């Protein structure tokens, strides 16, 4: 039976349990005439729910467990079979996964052309498949029927049905909340696992401190592991350069916008300006990338040329400039929050001494809000470092080690994208390098975020 069919049967069983139990409790209530004593009763439907949970949940859990162990089980039985039949599959044991994939993806048409040994394995595979499917169907359905019967007996009129049901819902809610943790664990595991494989081939120090990055040449088998090819320093420097240009634009402009909006602008101006900034924040990054690559970069190049400077057409300046503008609303809204958290008493204290508004802002508000602003800047830096589309479209591919913003540099995110798009073998050092870069990116932004969030929270608590 297919999994969908099994789940459907389970749902039918659950519905059956629900209605039967509810009816029973209804009937009991009526005959026992508890009503007269005016004792508040648990509604019959809760008994139905609990009964339905009994028939559904254990069977579903069993189904999931079987699904997880099914594949390795089939694989190991097949491996045993291959060994016992002495079929030669390849030169090494690590090709077994590949071989399994081939077997799995064989279709009926291919069978005619495939070699007889493969066909033998394929048939055996199908046999195992169907056995495991039978086993699964029987176990799950048996479990479901058993538990339905058990639930019918177990749920009695004095069972605290509502409490049990609500506890169950609470657990479901908790599981939903835990997904955030699971996601983080998933991210860490997926980048860490592949990175460890990568560092098995390329030494960690070569990656961290190497000055040359040319993964393309390393595809050739004679060059795999050549230590000079995976030095990530040019990428780190390039990322930093573009992020710095972006922050150089975004922080002053964002901060000044926030100050103007919260301290000077009339409420009418504010009511127009804030949504406009929100639009700026809502424009997809791919649009910024397009604009940077096709409009801003040529403009900057031409401008540079007219001033007698040589500017690369994929200059770090163009990408950084557009990225900076993208981050303005982000910085502005963070600073706005932070500035408005400074107590009015502080403002009045300064104004009451005869300070002008700008003196109050520069000498009192900003120093008071500094931790919050720093936190905001760190978050903005984290965004700039992790920003992908603008740099993929407007920054270069070649890894130049330079701090001149007029030249083309490449970034960590650009390299991740170029290494992973297109059809490469998943196991090559080249694709694994992308995960190592991903790990660096994740760790860097994680540190920035944690510090920033901590600083901002501390700051808020101070004024609350």
């Amino acid at each position: 039976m297919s999994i969908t069919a099994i789940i459907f049967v389970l749902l039918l069983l659950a519905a059956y349990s629900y209605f039967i139990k509810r009816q029973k409790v209804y009937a009991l209530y009526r005959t026992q005439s508890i009503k007269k004593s005016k004792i508040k009763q648990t509604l019959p439907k809760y008994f139905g729910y609990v009964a339905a949970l009994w028939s559904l949940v254990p069977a579903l859990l069993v189904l999931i467990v079987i699904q997880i162990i099914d594949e390795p089980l089939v694989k190991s039985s097949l491996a045993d079979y291959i060994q016992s039949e002495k079929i030669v599959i390849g030169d090494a044991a690590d090709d077994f996964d590949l071989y399994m994939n081939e077997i799995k993806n064989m279709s009926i048409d291919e069978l005619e052309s495939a070699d007889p040994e493969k066909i033998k394995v394929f048939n055996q595979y199908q046999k195992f498949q169907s056995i495991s499917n039978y086993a699964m169907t029987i176990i799950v359905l048996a479990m479901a029927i058993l538990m339905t019967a058990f639930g019918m007996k177990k749920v009695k009129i004095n069972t605290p049905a509502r409490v049990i049901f609500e506890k169950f819902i609470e657990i479901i809610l908790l599981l939903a909340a835990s997904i955030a943790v699971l996601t983080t664990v998933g991210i860490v595991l997926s980048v860490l696992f592949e990175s460890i494989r990568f560092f098995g081939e390329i030494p960690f120090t070569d990656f961290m401190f190497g000055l040359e990055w040319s993964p393309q040449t390393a595809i050739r088998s004679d060059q795999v592991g050549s230590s000079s090819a995976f030095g990530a320093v040019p990428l780190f420097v390039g990322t930093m350069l573009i992020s710095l240009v972006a922050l150089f634009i975004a922080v002053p402009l964002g901060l000044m916008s926030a100050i103007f909006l919260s301290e000077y602008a009339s409420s009418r101006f504010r009511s127009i300006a804030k949504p406009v900034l929100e639009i700026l924040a809502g424009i997809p990054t791919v649009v910024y990338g397009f604009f940077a690559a096709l409009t801003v970069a040529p403009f900057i190049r031409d401008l540079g040329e007219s001033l007698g400077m040589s500017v690369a057409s994929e200059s770090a300046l163009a990408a950084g400039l557009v990225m900076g503008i993208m981050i303005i609303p982000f910085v502005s809204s963070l600073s706005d929050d932070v500035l408005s958290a400074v107590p009015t008493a502080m403002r009045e204290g300064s104004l009451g001494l005869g300070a002008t508004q700008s003196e109050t802002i520069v000498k009192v508000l900003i120093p008071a809000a500094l931790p919050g602003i720093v936190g905001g800047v760190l978050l903005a830096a984290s965004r700039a470092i992790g920003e992908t589309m603008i740099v993929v479209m407007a920054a270069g591919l070649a890894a130049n080690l330079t701090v001149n913003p007029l030249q083309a540099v490449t970034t960590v995110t650009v390299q991740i994208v170029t290494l992973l798009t297109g059809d490469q073998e998943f196991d090559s050092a080249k694709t694994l390098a992308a995960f190592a870069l991903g790990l660096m990116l994740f760790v860097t932004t994680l540190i920035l975020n944690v510090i920033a969030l901590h600083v901002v929270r501390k700051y808020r608590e101070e004024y609350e």
Partner: protein
Amino acid sequence: MNKVTQKVEKGLKKRYMKEKIFKACGLVSIGFAFMFLLLLLTDITIKAWPAFVQTQIELKLDLSEENLGLNAKSAQEEIKQADFRAVIRSALKKQFPDVKKRKDRKELYSLVSFGAEYQLRDLVMDNPNLIGTRSSIKLIADDDVDAVVKGTINRNDDESNRRVKNLKLSLIEGLEENNQISKQFNWTFFSSGDSREPELAGIKGAIMGSLYTILVTLLLSFPVAVAAAIYLEEFAPKNRFIDLIEININNLAAVPSIVFGLLGLAVFINFFSMPRSAPLVGGIVLSLMTLPTIIIASRSAIKAVPPSLREAALGLGASKMQTVFHHVFPAALPGILTGTIIGMAQALGETAPLLMIGMVAFIVDIPQSIGDPSTVLPIQVFLWADSPERGFLEKTSAAILVLIGFLIIMNAVAIYLRKKFEKKW
């Protein structure tokens, strides 16, 4: 006035100057952001405009029975096999008998689009009574012709700098004199999938792909996010695990989106062997990415529900769960929906993580389900922006306009919801 006052007064002019400069700096900052937005939107709109118009060439086609090898009773299958290319070419040859050289002929044939024969085939399949007639039919023009007609390629440029050479230009002008060239609204752009030919490329495939992806994202992230938000606001005890969850949510909101793409690639595609390039995986990845956004918005919406409402329900003997689901959740729903729509808008514009899971492939077919390989609007923009053909520039801009249009609609709905259901507690 005393001495101090005089001293203060002396410095005042300078201080007010500074004040003015400071204020002007603020205004300039905002003005800069506005200018940029205006520039960006006008630039893209101007570039996009021609994409909504399609150039067509009207040709007198000889659809006689012997020419096509068909008759009025031919089955659809037979019509599909017929050689419509020859029909179009002979019509062109007939109109320009002077073009003799093989190379020149090639130029002549490339006046109409590569897809014109399929356009003609579909037309005949829909109207079999065309067979045996001679009819004037409008065919899609090649992108070069399109560019010349729209003026994107300047006819007065020197031939060496011009993509369309003199011969072809004279052919186009010949057609123009005969009033055979017409322009109409570009339905192709909205009704077909991607193509290597700019004049045949459309965004329907990308729109459908985006739709499926967003649907998966919504179905996954909304219930999970709401459940998580309710748990954290209403039920969570104060302990380390809950702290861990909170830190994780806040941090995930700031993790670069491309990292989620790596997660999708490593976990869903390599480990769980889910289909590459499919909206299903894209939706899962995007839902993980938007979860924190929706959770944070939902939490603040739940927080805004006044305690008095909870107390009222609890005071009547409702259980905590009943209080939450009967009273708090409905009251917080508008805020939650607003947050969800904003999260969906964010997901709709997201590109990087989808690149990682292979939604960047060239896909002509329009996806029919969440398991079909497909691409999404932002990635279509990315793909076209990378194309060397000039004709794709306007398509890219037009696709951006469509994308921004969708985003504006979603945000407008969110604002409407917020305004309509805004309650003053």
